[in-house]
């Protein structure tokens, strides 16, 4: 029985950490703000969720299990919201997504405007 | 000798970075950030002093015998609160300086003062 537990939790942990690694690689490689933000917020929510599930399988008693469930629910609720708010704030601050490959004419708005005061958002 | 004192080297390094920022930087907010860095390095110095090899957090449970030293933890709780209070007061001073002088750069403030003399 514990063989099954250790294997399944191992798989979950490995998968979760792989997703997190891929998210950070995405953060470095993607061209502009929105794609980077997409990479991190998606992987952050799912990666953490998988790691938590892996831990839940390993958890010795009910109290630890309940706490992990709480953290999982919280993570699932907050992850996407932060992604949403970040994108909205960037968009309202006038950061246009880079649509074309060359990305020169629609590149991000001249930096002077982008550096606007936060209080505007 | 070197590995055994690794924790102190790290604390010294952070201390010197913090002190450098406080003295070299002209922007008032960066000075405060340097001060926070300087104080956090002192916390790291205290807490790394308290760690015992193989000891766990000082929360009593029947099966564990070796614990880390609880006294520095209590001292550092006080020091963190002192640090945040100083930061809060310093930031309110910065806001008032921005209103009164219109700038938060050390040079410009000194310039405005000399002008007035």
């Amino acid at each position, binding site marked *: 029985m514990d063989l099954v537990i250790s294997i399944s939790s191992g798989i979950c942990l490995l998968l979760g950490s792989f997703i997190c690694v891929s998210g950070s690689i995405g953060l470095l490689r993607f061209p502009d703000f929105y794609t980077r933000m997409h990479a991190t917020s998606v992987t952050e929510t799912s990666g953490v969720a998988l790691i938590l599930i892996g831990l839940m399988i390993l958890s010795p008693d009910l109290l630890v299990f309940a706490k992990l469930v709480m953290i999982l629910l919280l993570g699932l609720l907050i992850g996407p919201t932060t992604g949403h708010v970040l994108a909205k704030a960037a968009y309202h601050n006038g950061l246009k997504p880079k649509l074309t490959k060359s990305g020169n004419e629609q590149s991000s708005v001249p930096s002077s405007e982008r550096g606007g005061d936060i209080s505007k958002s | 000798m070197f590995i055994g004192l690794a924790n102190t080297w790290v604390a010294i390094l952070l201390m010197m970075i913090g002190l450098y920022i406080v003295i070299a930087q002209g922007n008032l907010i960066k000075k405060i950030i340097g001060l926070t860095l300087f104080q956090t390095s002192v916390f790291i110095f205290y807490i790394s002093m308290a760690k015992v090899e193989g000891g766990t957090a000082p929360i009593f449970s029947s099966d564990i015998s070796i614990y880390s030293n609880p006294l520095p933890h209590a*001292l550092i709780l006080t*020091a963190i609160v002192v640090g945040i209070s*100083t930061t809060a007061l310093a930031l309110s001073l910065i806001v008032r300086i921005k209103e009164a002088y219109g700038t938060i750069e050390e040079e410009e403030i000194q310039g405005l003062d000399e002008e007035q003399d």
Partner: protein
Amino acid sequence: MVSQLPVLQVILPLMAAPLCLLLKRSTLVWLFCLIVSFLSLLISILLVQQVSTSGPIDYAFGGWDVPWGIGYRIDQLNVLLLIVITAMSSVVLIAAKESIAREIDPEKHVYFYILYLLSLSGMLGIVATGDAFNIFVFLEITSLSVYALIAMGRHRRALWASYQYLIMGTIGATFILIGIGMMYQMTGTLNITDLSVRLAELPQKRTILTAFVFIIVGVCLKLALFPLHLWLPNAYTYAPSIVSAFLAATATKVAIYLLIRFTYSVFGPSLSFAAIPLQTLFMALGLVGIFVASVTAIYQTNVKKLFAYSSIAHIGYMILGFSTGTVAGLTATLLHVFNHALMKSALFLALAAVMLRIGSVQLSSMQGLGRQMPWTMAAIVLAGLSLIGVPLTVGFVSKWYLLVAIIEQGNWVVAGLILMGSLLAVIYVWRIVEVAYFKEPATAQKGDVLEGAAGGSTEAPLSFLIPIWLLVGANIYFGIDTRFSTQLAQSAAQSLFGVSP
């Protein structure tokens, strides 16, 4: 209840501060603060008697005996400082109501009194405690409330002065924290008496020396000793007048107490004076401090800044007494702590009265004030004389003891330099006297500035004259009958050297 006095000394103002927030009106809060301040003065007088009769008092918090819990240890040295702090705060508070009514917005009066009480209880906490980390906590309470008090000054430079003081003060306090951390790491205890025992028997000395240097640098930053004094002139000049009076009389004295306590009680004279040439270093710094500060004081146009620089000079005198390392030298320092507080508070309170009446303390605007405000200017002249060290005043007594201590050590050069320092003091006091009495008042164009109280009397109100002349009277009285102050300083110095008084 008598055995609980050490705790009540600190707890009374500490608990009174939040209580002020509950009484809304500022006159009620002022009266409450006055009562609390005089009560703590009464407690410190009782403590003096208790200590002189039955020797040092020990008090363990929470019933845990000393190295495990926090312990208070009140001996002759603490008591001298407690008396000075509580007396100065009570006298300065008398004039507070009128002075801040003009200098601070009405909404902020209650906050002013709360911060004043907190800085008072912080200073009492530093002086009374026997636990190293507790010194750091109460040092932070005093510093934070003083930063806020200075920043409430009317002029915008008060903010900049307070910011600079905050940066320097926090670096100093963190240096002290590093020093305490190193001492704790080598000995495992935080109590001062326990520390001195365990530090003495430690074989390896390097970490202890570094801890000592860090603490001394941190304390010198708070002390505004010569090279580290840059924050003091602006802080005292642009703060509200009542705050500069209170700070001038007590803030640097607490730092002197810390210096003496750490060198004598924690590290022991053998380590602190032998290992590093502390004596010659402090003697040099003291002398240079006296001359540089006095010379800059002469060129100041703002009278408050002038007296701030003269404070730095007088700290130089105290450090000189300390640097001799003998009982006589230490007695001279402690005596000067007592006398300097009297001198400086009288001067700064008189300046508060001048600020109240003519709204500025610039030398140019004080022309011919001798006739408009006869009592206040007379007080300034008398306190100025005592600053110089004219016989029959307090200044003379402490300079005398300092000279005796220095001559006992045989270096006449330093004694000569001290006398020269006093001559410089004559010059900057004379500048004020000359402006106040011999220049005819330039009231032609500034007629409205002299808005007098009811009935056009331009003299300072009674609530100023009583404390000012109380202090000037004390200046004279303790200049003649020096028994009380010297006996106190003597027993404190001897207790530090282990000589039974």
